[in-house]
């Protein structure tokens, strides 16, 4: 069973039952899950977690859906790798990569969709939907195939075919919308109101977003139940960024970090900051779509929406739902936000591949380039324990790095090979 009491508005604090809702009926503020932490603290322990499956569902007591029979394609528990090559290159002696590109549908979206799909089935939905240009579509379609329910995936009509093959293979209903980015956005929001479907990031959003907390839990567990000094995280809507922070603070408050005494969550669970959580949260966005980084850098009290124009399509959310909350996390953690120049994205992909043997998509290029900036600027010191989150697989965006294919061309003879090979050396 899920240990939740209901939902609560992040703006006005009004409470609601745990239903498929995402906005407060009074002020239209976003809703978040309210947990029964008193009960959770009695049942959760290192032992209970370590006995669980090697997926996000090992943290089932901390998730808002019933983890006894989840929709699970084994998302999560991805490798945390000591990055010796990349660390050497950047002058960081204590650098780790959380490689979430090896999830079953090759992105971190499997974490959030697994929770949303499980919750959707609990609510009795038989159709799960999303609007996506890539990773989310793949994950929704894959989880629906696993659960045996209908998937409906909305895509912009100008989306490259290659981008959607990874979703189409699971046989969802694909709906290609002939309209602008804004029109597709608006249509899907209206459909979510009109149809009895579970839209993972609309009416399921309060539950869906909680899946990203597991990115925080896993890093802590894999580091021996301690937290890093810094995390470097890519950001689109800002939700994942805020949930990693929330995950760290939940572990601290529940007394699950080594040497840390638990404490009360207080009235506002979602903004709680345990003093033992000293991790600095560093957000990376691509310059072509960096509304949160811009607002933070300019000390703005609100995040102005932008029209995305970036190579990093999986980060291209111009109107980020959690932007303002992400800025609060940056400030509380004494972290930072950075808009990575578009010209640096491919360099970041190549740097990670050449130093660590990990092929990431454009979002990962943003993150690694952002990490490089943090190291060069001195924001991260050489011995600081640092974790960089790589959240998607490079095979999703091969067109971005096609320039790397430059084979040595030879005739089928030893002589031709040696001439070319020794010449190339």
């Amino acid at each position, binding site marked *: 069973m899920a240990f939740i009491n209901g939902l609560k508005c992040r703006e006005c604090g009004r409470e609601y039952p745990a239903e498929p809702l*995402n906005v407060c009926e009074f*002020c239209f503020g976003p809703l978040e899950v309210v947990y029964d932490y008193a009960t959770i603290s009695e049942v959760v322990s290192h032992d209970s977690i370590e006995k669980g499956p090697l997926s996000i569902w090992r943290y089932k007591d901390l998730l808002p859906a019933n983890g006894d029979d989840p929709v699970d394609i084994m998302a999560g528990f991805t490798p945390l790798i000591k990055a010796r090559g990349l660390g050497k290159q950047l002058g960081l002696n204590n650098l780790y990569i959380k490689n979430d590109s090896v999830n079953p549908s090759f992105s971190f979206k499997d974490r959030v969709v697994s929770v949303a799909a499980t919750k959707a089935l609990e609510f009795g939905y038989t159709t799960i939907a999303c*609007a996506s240009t890539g990773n989310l579509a793949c994950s929704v379609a894959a989880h629906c195939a696993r659960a045996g329910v209908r998937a409906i995936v909305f895509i912009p009509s100008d989306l490259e075919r290659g981008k959607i093959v990874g979703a189409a293979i699971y046989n969802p209903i694909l709906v290609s919308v002939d309209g602008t980015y804004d029109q597709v956005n608006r249509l899907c929001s209206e459909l979510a109101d009109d149809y009895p479907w579970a839209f993972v990031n609309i009416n399921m959003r309060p539950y869906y977003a909680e899946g990203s907390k597991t990115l925080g839990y896993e890093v802590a567990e894999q580091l021996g139940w301690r937290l890093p000094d810094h995390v470097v995280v890519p950001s689109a809507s800002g939700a994942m960024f805020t949930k990693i922070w929330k995950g760290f603070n939940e572990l601290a408050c529940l007394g699950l970090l080594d040497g840390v005494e638990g404490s009360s969550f207080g009235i506002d669970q979602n903004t709680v900051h345990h003093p033992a959580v000293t991790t600095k949260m560093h957000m990376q966005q691509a310059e072509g779509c960096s509304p949160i980084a811009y607002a933070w850098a300019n000390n703005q*009290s*609100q995040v*102005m929406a932008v029209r995305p124009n970036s190579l990093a399509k*999986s980060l291209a959310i111009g*109107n980020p*739902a959690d932007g303002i909350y992400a800025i609060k996390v940056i400030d509380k953690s004494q972290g930072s936000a950075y808009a990575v120049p578009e010209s640096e994205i491919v360099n970041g992909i190549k740097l990670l591949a050449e130093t660590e043997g990990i092929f990431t998509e454009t*979002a990962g290029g943003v993150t690694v380039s952002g990490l490089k900036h943090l190291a060069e600027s001195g924001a991260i010191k050489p011995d600081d324990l640092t974790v960089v989150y790589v959240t998607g697989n490079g095979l999703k965006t091969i067109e971005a790095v096609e320039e790397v294919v430059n084979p040595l061309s030879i005739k089928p003879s030893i002589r031709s090979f040696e001439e070319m090979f020794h010449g190339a050396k």
Partner: protein
Amino acid sequence: MGKQRVKFTFEETLVKQPVIYELGQKFKIVTNIRRAEVGEEVGWVILELEGGDPEIQKGLEWVSSTGVRVDPLGGDVIAG
């Protein structure tokens, strides 16, 4: 009759214009403001519109034509 929840964002040059008043006057739409913030450089309003679907559509197109940005309530829903 339908309802739609939206966010209007006004840049500095538009903050003083009575766009929401005119929306109600020009179209058969009832506007119901739920939350807002107006700063020196920018302002936003979250509101519910009630009216016929075609009327709301035309009204939102008109609002966009004034330069005010119109977004769905919960931020962008197209995810990567």
